[in-house]
């Protein structure tokens, strides 16, 4: 038996991350080998000029896995919606 291909994941963008990527969300089949949020951000940077710009300063990008904040070391396996955004400025 071979492993089932991973289902596509919804990637969601907000504020200037959204503007730089150029879309509010997309459905993507992630490549194998991405274990953590940090791995995913590194892969995003490789996807073209817009992504390289949006994820230029990886350390300030905040990530939510299925609408919960996640540190860059968190495992992404199982997440169906992954959001990327700048530090929050509400309130």
């Amino acid at each position, binding site marked *: 038996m071979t492993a089932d291909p991973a289902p596509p994941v919804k990637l969601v963008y907000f504020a*200037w991350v959204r503007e730089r990527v150029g879309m509010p969300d997309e459905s993507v089949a992630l490549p194998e080998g991405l274990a953590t949020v940090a791995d995913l951000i590194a892969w995003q940077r490789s996807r073209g000029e817009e992504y390289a710009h949006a994820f230029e300063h990886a350390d300030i990008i905040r990530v*939510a896995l299925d609408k919960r904040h996640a540190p860059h070391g968190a495992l992404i396996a199982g997440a169906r919606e992954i959001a990327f*955004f*700048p530090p*929050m400025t509400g309130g």
Partner: protein
Amino acid sequence: MPPAATIRIQSEPFDVPAETARLTAGRADIGGIVAFTGLCRDEGGRLEALELEHYPGMAEEEIGRVAETALARWPLLGLTAIHRHGLIRPGEDIVLVIAASAHRRAAFEAADFMMDYLKTRAPFWKREHLIGGTKGPWVEARAEDDAAAARW
């Protein structure tokens, strides 16, 4: 059993006295109410409006998680948090937190805590719209907001 918190994300303005009355209606065990209202400043006259973007779904959930923490930590008799999104003009309200308790200390601390955590954890982003119609920059997060949240 702690009360359920009221959490709302909305574009329309909120009504502070109505929200306060909702917490106090029909009871006489509340000794102190702290209401914090956050307003849009005009930044010395250069601001036309603030645009508040948010992450629908997560905004309610995350504020709900912060509220659960507050309800577990302080003996509250009522807790409300309302955050607006969309275009907000100078002088208008942006955010409301109301905490009610038998004694004032819990209400002060819980409202203060809620605001520090809303600022740093609720998925909202502010962008300035300047007088004259140009879109200004996204507001940058302030290190002192993180420091304030770290107090708790």
